[in-house]
């Protein structure tokens, strides 16, 4: 089967510093891929490259057989197809949860509020937030905010979702409710790439684990292999520190 998303030789520098140094990665449809690695290893940058928030310097990103990393392409259609959720939620603080979710579909798809209302309400209900739609972000807990951010990305009906350490800023007792959402999405067949430190979660659900080190994927494989018997010394060292 051909992959939904394929990265080949992707490179990205900030000034002199090369942060992503030739990444190859395949993600099949409905797969969940977890990126693990030390802080500063390039997980966030790689995710931002995939939905073109950062222009890549070199290499190709194939989405359904189309190279979206071609310089000069309009990134916006791609961003509609690949959603991303950030560690710090980044909700729009001057809008209610519902307005946060409706903004992009209204402006980009030209849908009316009325047409969107049932869809949006269903999303909120699905993630247990139907009574929080009219709240402003600062009236919500961190876990609730992060779930709204996920709903906001889902409202554009993306084909792939990227999650960048979305539980790292949460109090421990709130992590579970957000991971449950990911579980649910995975079960529904969403293609997902996660940067995460939740090793237990990654081991339980991921189809593939990639260990990033210094901007390269040093080692990748199914969790059963990578966690149980890492080939690389650096992977072993990293895992012994976080597990």
């Amino acid at each position: 089967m051909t992959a939904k998303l394929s990265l080949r030789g992707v490179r990205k520098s900030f000034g002199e510093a090369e942060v992503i140094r030739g990444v190859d990665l395949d993600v099949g449809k409905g797969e969940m891929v977890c990126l693990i690695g030390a802080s500063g290893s390039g997980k966030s940058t790689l995710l931002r490259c995939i939905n073109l928030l950062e222009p890549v310097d070199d290499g190709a990103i194939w989405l359904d057989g189309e190279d979206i990393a071609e310089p000069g392409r309009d990134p916006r259609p791609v961003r509609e197809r690949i959603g991303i959720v950030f560690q710090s939620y980044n909700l729009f603080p001057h809008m209610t949860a519902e307005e946060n979710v409706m903004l992009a579909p209204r402006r980009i798809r030209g849908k009316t509020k009325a047409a969107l209302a049932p869809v949006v309400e269903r999303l909120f209900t699905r993630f247990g937030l139907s009574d929080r739609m009219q709240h402003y972000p600062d009236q919500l807990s961190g876990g609730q905010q992060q779930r709204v951010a996920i709903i906001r990305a889902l409202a554009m009906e993306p084909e792939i979702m990227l999650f960048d350490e979305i539980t790292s800023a949460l109090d421990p007792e709130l992590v579970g409710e957000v991971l449950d959402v990911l579980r649910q999405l995975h079960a529904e067949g969403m293609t997902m790439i996660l940067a995460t430190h939740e090793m237990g979660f990654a081991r339980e659900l991921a189809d593939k684990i990639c260990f990033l080190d210094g901007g390269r994927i040093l080692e990748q494989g199914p969790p059963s292999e990578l966690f149980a018997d890492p080939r690389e010394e650096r992977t072993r060292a990293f895992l012994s520190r976080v597990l």
Partner: protein
Amino acid sequence: MADTGLTQARRVAGAPTRRAAYEARIRRRSNLIAAASTAAVMLAVVVLVPLAPGWEAVQRSFFNGRVFVETFPGLLEAFLLDVAIFAWCAPSIALVGLVIALCRDVRAPALFPLRAFGAVFTDIFRGLPVILVIYLIGFGVPGLGLPRPWNSPYLWGSLALILVYSAYVAEVIRSGIDSIHQSQRSAAASLGLSEADTMRYVVLPQALRNVVPANMNLLIALQKDVALLSFIGPVEIFRQAGVYKSLMANFTPYVGAAVIFLAITIPATRYADYLMARQQRRRR
């Protein structure tokens, strides 16, 4: 001893806590001290100033009740002109200031001239004294030979105010735009929103809200600078006070004008301070 401690600790529900009682005591004391010292200063001013040898002359020239009563209604009427000028300048300033701020934020290379224009505009009009701009535009532009009513000093004087003040407002708005964290733009972009939509729906609403207090201060300054239009002809309150002063050889009309200005600006300043404080509290 241990017993009293316990009784105190087991207080009746609804009674003030020990801390609340202590703070109430402190508050009462500071209020008392503040009241006493204020009274002392007031007394000193009221008793000592009239003892100054020139007080009677000063009172006759500056605090002349008869002149005050005679000129106050005329001053109030002239103040209506200030209010009117303010009322038509303020919305234009908001609009022009916003446009200039947006000009300075455009990134597309094709629009570079717009960006340069925004920078030059703010540099020039923030760099010039208001009165100079009023003279140059108020007399200069109509001097080119415009027909009536297009040469009116009200029109061009107001334009001068609008240009100067929108330069300041533009800078304030730009600082507001800059204060919105990059992650907000990132989040909007990640959803596929265009730059224009990101500005319109995500950045500007937050930026404008953040700069309301700063803009309130500019509005207060504008309210006072409206008086500068009198230099090119309009008889607003400052000029009217000058006319009364010269006709009556008495400075009391200026005091009257000051009273009218303060009646507007003090509440406005307090309100701006309140907004500013509320925002500080929110940020914390």
